[in-house]
């Protein structure tokens, strides 16, 4: 199944809460808080683009999440 890397920006101090919520999601393989350009990184396995879209929307809805950026695996 293809993979996707979701990069998340959070409001200051909201990272732990958002990370907890992300970890509860179904298809998340790994997720952690980071130092650097983004606050949280999550790796997803998804069946189709629609399911990935729903997952990213779920993340975007989490209280404290400001923005997300998704890198979808290309099957070269």
């Amino acid at each position, binding site marked *: 199944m293809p993979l996707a890397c979701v990069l998340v920006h959070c409001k200051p101090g909201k990272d732990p809460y958002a990370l907890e919520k992300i970890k509860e999601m179904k298809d998340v393989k790994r997720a952690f808080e980071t130092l650097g350009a983004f606050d949280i990184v999550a*790796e997803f396995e998804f069946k189709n683009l629609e399911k990935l879209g729903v997952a990213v929307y779920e993340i975007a809805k989490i209280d404290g999440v400001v923005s997300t950026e998704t890198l979808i695996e290309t099957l*070269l």
Partner: protein
Amino acid sequence: MIQVCILMNAEKVSILDVVKKLEKIPGVVETFPTFGRFDIVAFCEVEKREDITPLIRKINAIEGVYKTESLIEL
């Protein structure tokens, strides 16, 4: 274990070669080429903080990689 997510930009022609080389680097757990602002993503795991710099240096040294962004687990 400390997780590190490394986002890379690479010469378009050598993306596949870079991914193959990445897969051989110990510590790299998962790597795949991507659509979007970055060309390749690599999820890595290292024992301790001191291992991060050598890992990133090794990845930067791969021919074709011209930009990396490292996201180190808090």
